Structures are given as C-alpha cells and as structure tokens.
C-alpha cells in the first residue's frame, strides 16, 4: 500500500477557547475521492480550513505526501498543490470572471488545466469572461470557484459544500462535471451535507459529529442505518 497523499493524525482545531475538532484521524490515497458528511457544526469546514492552511498550528497532525504541513500558511500550502473551493464561492468581486480564473493560475503549476480547458468544462464562463463575478448567477459563480481552484493544477482539491444554495438542476450539472475533474489524476475531499450526492461521487466516506469521526467506510457498501446513527447519533 503506497503512502497516502494526505493523512490526519489526531487533528485538533480550536477557535480561541472553542475546540472544533477532537483527534480526527483520516487518510486519503493517491487518486482517491473521499467525502466528509455531517450536520452543521460537525467540524467539516474546520477540517478543510486546517488542511488548506487557513487554520495553522496543527503541527505534524497534518501530513501531505509524508511531510508535515500543519504549520504552513495558506499560500505555502497552495504552492504544494492543494486547492480549496470554499463554501459560499467567495469570488473576488472587483475581478472579472477571467481575472478570477487567472489569479487561480498565478502559481503556474504544470498540468492539464488552463483558461481554455476551464472554458471547455464550463462554456458559459467563456461567454461571460469579461463580466464582473458579482453579475453571475449562483451556479455560474460556483463554476468560477471550481475553475479558479483547477487553474492551479492541484494534486489535491478540497470542495466545501459546493451544492449549498444552488438550484437542483445546477447541483446536478456541477456533480455531473466532477468525475471529469477528479479523473485528471487528482485526489479530492468533498465536504457535503447532501449525503446521496456525496456517496455518489466518492470512494470512501467519513462522517463527523461534534468534531469527531463517527463513521468511516466505502461509499458503495455503507448502510443507511450506519450513516443515520453516525450523522445524528441515533440508533
């Protein structure tokens, strides 16, 4: 078994005095997609913020390709090839669609993704390339957020609640595009509240509750009862 691309070893995270994660253990293998499910406040976003460097001081609790990255800043983590598609899109409002994508590619990492390939994935963005990012619909903004992350040609991409606040038809189109994205040799972590969506695109699933892992298993074989128990803490 090769070394995992990402491993969390007893990860704890705090916001001031409040502890959000309690000793989370997790592994992600090369080319694998895992999903993290859990209710609001379970610690899913905190976990992604820790991995991406937005929350530091995790020390050796986070290892990427065997190296400790828990104390790196977010820009240093990005340079290693880890990209985050943040919750709520969070595009740069003063930048156009194309500028948002270009700034995602400023690290000039080699790989298959470029402005052109992002436009091929989401053709509507090419039509609206000069529009201010604030003028787009929610679904189009999510496409820009995904494209912006892809422009850095990441080896590991983290998706945080990409279906949040979007119409079902938009969610479907984005999830339809995901296999083509992670099929480019990337590994991925998908944080999602929509359990069926998360299970449909991932190899394995972790469930978090109140900052602790309460379930781990293969997405295709895990039972609904086990998920209900892990998700809500009920029998």
């Amino acid at each position, binding site marked *: 078994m090769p070394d995992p691309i990402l491993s969390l070893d007893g990860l704890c995270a705090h916001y001031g005095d409040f502890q959000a994660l309690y000793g989370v253990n997790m592994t992600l293998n090369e080319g694998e997609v895992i999903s993290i499910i859990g209710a609001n406040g379970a610690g899913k976003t905190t976990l992604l913020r820790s991995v*991406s*460097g*937005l929350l530091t001081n995790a020390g050796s609790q986070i290892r990427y390709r065997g190296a400790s990255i828990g104390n790196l*800043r*977010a*820009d240093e983590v*990005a*340079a290693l090839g880890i*990209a*985050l598609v*943040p919750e709520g899109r*969070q595009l*740069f*409002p*003063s*930048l156009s669609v194309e*500028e948002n994508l*270009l*700034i*995602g590619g*400023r*690290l000039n990492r080699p790989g298959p993704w470029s402005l052109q390939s992002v436009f091929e994935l989401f053709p509507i963005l090419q039509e609206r390339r000069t529009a201010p990012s604030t003028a787009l619909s929610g679904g189009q903004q999510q496409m820009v957020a995904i494209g*912006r992350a892809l422009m*850095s040609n990441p080896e590991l991409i983290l998706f945080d609640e990409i279906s949040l606040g979007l119409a079902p038809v938009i969610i479907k189109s984005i999830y339809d595009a995901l296999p083509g994205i992670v099929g480019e040799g990337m590994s991925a972590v998908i944080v999602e509240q929509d359990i069926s969506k998360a299970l449909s695109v991932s190899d394995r699933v972790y469930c978090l509750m109140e900052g602790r892992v309460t379930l781990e298993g293969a997405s295709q074989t895990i039972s609904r009862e086990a998920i209900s128990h892990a998700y809500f803490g009920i029998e």
Partner: protein
Amino acid sequence: MDWVNALVQGTLLGGLYALFAAALSLIFGVMRLVNIAHGDFIVLAAYLGLTVVMSTGLHPLLALSLVVPMMAGFGYALQRGILNQTLGDDILPPLLVTFGLSVILQNLFLEGYTADPQKMDAGLLETASVSLGSLSLGILPLLTFAIAVAVIAGLQFVFYRTALGRAFRAVSDNQEIAQLMGLNKRHIFGLAMALALAVTAVAGVLLGIRTSFDPTSGGARLIYGFEAVIIGGLGNLWGTLAGGVILGVAQTIGAKIDPGFQLLAGHIAFLLVLAVRPNGLFPRVSG
C-alpha cells in the same frame, strides 16, 4: 482674465495634490491602512532629494532616479518589518503606529536638517514659463501636472492590466481567499507600500522644488492628500486627480478673493463635497 488664470493655476496645483493623494488612496485601497505618517513620508522624500542634490550635484528631477528606489525600498521594509504586524480587524493599531512614525520622523528631520526651511534649486525650470494668449503658465506647474497624469495613468494600468494589479485587488477584496491562490499577503502589502512610496518620492521631490519645506511640513500635505482622496471618492484613481484639481482650484480662487482665504477655501470646498456627496464625487472603482 484673472479668474481664468486662477482657474488654470489651481488646476495645475491640483496635479501636485493628486500626487500627494495617490499613494494614500493606493494604500487604503489595498490594505485599508490609514497612514497618518503620509505627509511626513512626502517630506522625507523631499529631504532625501535635497541630500542627493547636495551630495551629487544632480538636478532635482534627475535625483528622482535615486530617491524613487530608495523610498520604494524603505516602503517595502517598513511594511514587512512594522506595518504588517499592525493590520487586522482593529483599525486603531495602524493609526497609532503611523502617528508614532510621524512623530519620530519629524524629530529625525529636526536632528538631521534643523528647523530651517529648505528648498531644492531646479535652476531655470523654476522660473521658465510659456504664454498662452494672455496667460503665462509656469513650466514647473505644467510639468508637475503632466507627471501627475502620467503617474495616475501608470497606477491605473498596473491595477487593471497587470498580474500585480490583480493580486492587489484580490488581496483587497478578500485576504483569506487570496492566500488560497498562493498570494502571500505580507509580500503583496509590501509591494503596495513600495509602489505608494515610489509615488510619494515623486510628490516629495516636486514639492521640494516648488516650495520650501521644514520638518513640520508634513501635516498640511497629509490633509491636502486626504481631502483630494475624499473629494474624488475612495478607490478611484482618476477621481483622486479630480479631487486634487478641485482642491487646487478652490485654493487659488480663494486666494484671488483674499490671499488669507486660500487654505480655508480649500477646506470649505472639501466640506461642501462631503456634505453633498459623503462618498466623494466618483466613489466607484473604475476599470
């Protein structure tokens, strides 16, 4: 015709005020830092220019080739060494630290250059003029205005047509997400301060050619800069030029009415704009 002359001279004076203001606007726009020491940085550039001129014999405008990189380097080091540590959710620390810097700089000027007013000698440039009908326009004010337009256009180009400008705007929009793009905000802020102090260097040297200055001259320049930025509207560089021109014209028209009314007229114009348009005349960021 005297009124037309006052209008034209005020417009040209506005170029210098726009140069005072451009760096303030840039720093506030990128990192939301209100720099109380900005006027003293202008005076620092003037003293640096004076020192270069006296020690090398260069013409003051040629001295810019040394003063601009010196001020840019100072700006980067200042930002990385001190000011980055003050930035956060609370706006008070940068205000206090730049106020402290202002006090320190003024005392250093006193130690190094005494309290006597100083001025740079630009030779014939100071007195040369061209006639336009019955108007006589000084070459130095014309040159200052042309430089101001060029600087504003250059900043506009950097902000809206280059990767560095994209980085400035991205960090200004959302520092946290910008870091996810691989942008080191401390470095970007350092570059923004370097660029701002490079512009300040031009403003300071032109100030030192146009008029005499002393260690306490920074306060008035800070106020003129703030007024021009706010009249023009925050975040709009061409608006800053317009703000400088409005301030300059108000001062020269005021001086035409009564020489003692010059500065007060500028402040009244500022207050009127603030009362009618609290966000300035052109508050939107233009591309």
